[in-house]
């Protein structure tokens, strides 16, 4: 009896903790629908006057804060990065684990080693390399270097290693070329791993802050996070507006989270098990 009472209390308490964790998001949503005067005097959590004027104002900006443009930049860049990472990583992992190219293991070791290097170290040299390529201030600066990330090829290699070699042998006997094997066999079998990789890559790219901050120069080429962050500096006390931009910026991610919640949480859970 003592124990079940304690369990109930714990259950209630943990639900409160969860509510507290997402409370800031609700405050953000509710406040973004208040007129500015109410924002500065937040006596009521729920708006007394509901308004979409903040949103209308944001979407109306053209010059100084082209919100729609930032949004489409982010969608385009994150999608391209996701596609590039999946194609390059899947082909690379296939070559290393299924076609067993000589030196593949060592190359994988080098990739994992390079993942230990902190991101800051790449900023200065990447800036110079991208400027030599004349890619600064273009989407290519954020898309192409991202395909060199080690996480995708490492993860897919792990996954492909666990696939039985008999699969290939059968395919070879049937006269499959490596390309056919890759397209019709390995890729479909890796679908679960690839979709997890896609979700994580998309989120990571969408949320990238330092890359666009350093490599993008013109306001209209910013991605959403950098756009709203720099915009916030000039309008920082107009919380109704900045919170409305935030709501718009997180909505796509919340949709992704709602769709792939199980996958995202369980990959997070698994990340500690490798050790």
């Amino acid at each position: 009896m003592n124990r079940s009472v304690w369990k109930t209390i714990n259950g209630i308490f943990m639900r409160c903790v969860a509510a507290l964790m997402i409370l800031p998001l609700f405050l953000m949503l509710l406040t973004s629908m208040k007129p500015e005067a109410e924002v500065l005097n937040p006596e009521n959590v729920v708006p007394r006057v509901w308004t979409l004027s903040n949103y209308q104002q944001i979407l109306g900006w053209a010059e100084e804060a082209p919100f729609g443009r930032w949004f489409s930049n982010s969608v385009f860049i994150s999608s391209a990065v996701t596609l590039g990472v999946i194609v390059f990583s899947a082909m690379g992992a296939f070559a290393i684990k299924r076609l067993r190219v000589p030196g593949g293991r060592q190359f994988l070791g080098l990739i994992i080693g390079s993942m230990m290097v902190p991101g800051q170290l790449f900023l200065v040299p990447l800036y110079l390399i991208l400027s030599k390529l004349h890619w600064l201030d273009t989407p290519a600066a954020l898309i192409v270097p991202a395909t060199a990330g080690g996480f995708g090829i490492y993860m897919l290699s792990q996954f492909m290693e666990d696939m039985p070699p008999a699969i290939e042998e059968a395919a070879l006997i049937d006269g499959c070329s490596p390309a056919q094997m890759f397209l019709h066999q390995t890729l479909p079998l890796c679908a679960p791993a690839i979709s997890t990789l896609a979700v994580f890559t998309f989120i990571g790219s969408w949320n990238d802050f330092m890359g666009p901050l350093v490599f993008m120069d013109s306001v209209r080429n910013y991605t959403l996070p950098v756009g709203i962050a720099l915009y916030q500096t000039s309008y920082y006390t107009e919380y109704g507006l900045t919170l409305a931009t935030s709501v718009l910026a997180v909505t796509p991610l919340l949709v992704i989270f709602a769709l792939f919640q199980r996958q995202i949480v369980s990959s997070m859970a698994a990340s500690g098990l490798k050790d």
Partner: protein
Amino acid sequence: MQRTGFLFLAPYAVSFAIFVILPIVVSFVLSFMRFDLTAQSSAGFVGFDNYREALQDNYFWSAVKATLLFALMIVPGLLVIGLSMALGMNAMARGQAAVRALVFLPGMLNIAVTGILWQWFFNGEFGLFNFALKHFGGQGQPWLSDKAFAMPSIVLMSVWWTVGGTAIILLTALQQIPGMYFEAAALDGASTTRMFRYITLPLLKPVMSFVVVTTSIAGFQMFGQAFMLTRGGPELSTRGVAQYIYETAFNSYRMGYGAAMSWLLFALISVFGIFQIRMMRRPA
């Protein structure tokens, strides 16, 4: 077959060579050069001058101090709060999956949104925290403008932002502990606290060391949080090494000096990483 193999590897390998290996090499060479994008003076090798300058640069040391302070607060914060949340979730009979997802949700936000949100909470005049404090008869606090408050405020936001991930990793490890250990201990009449001390904690140690190492590596690279909330202030007290590198390279355009400091940051992270792994390997 092998030629095809190399063809499959080629796209990634080329990208890796240009955007991972080449930058590491360039950064290393740059760290021994004067390479200012603004100055008329020509670029050239200066030996260890950049490293020497960093070690004598008060701004660098104050950035190191801020970085260490942040890591020293965030790592135990995430570990203790994350473990408490994990224990709480582990004891839930129902609704665990939903709580797990909600607790993780803040980690999905990017730092710009997180920063905008918390800047509003922390604002001295119009902020939600001070409004609540005054409403209940307390006094408003200078959350971001006072040296004593600024870093803890940044840490508070960072805990909210990332603790869900830590909690989920620890929860998964808790669920891996075979239930019979606790049953056997219960038969022997062990109390809950003793079971926690002698079964749960020792078995969680590998995962906790994973959490400590990964969170401190991330902590040492702290940039966005301070950039959004304080821009490194007040009086540069929250400007970490990463932000100083960013400002050196992209506001002062001193690429060589920025590169040298990024190698020093890497060294700092490696030393702490190795030290922590050694400590954790020692028997309890």
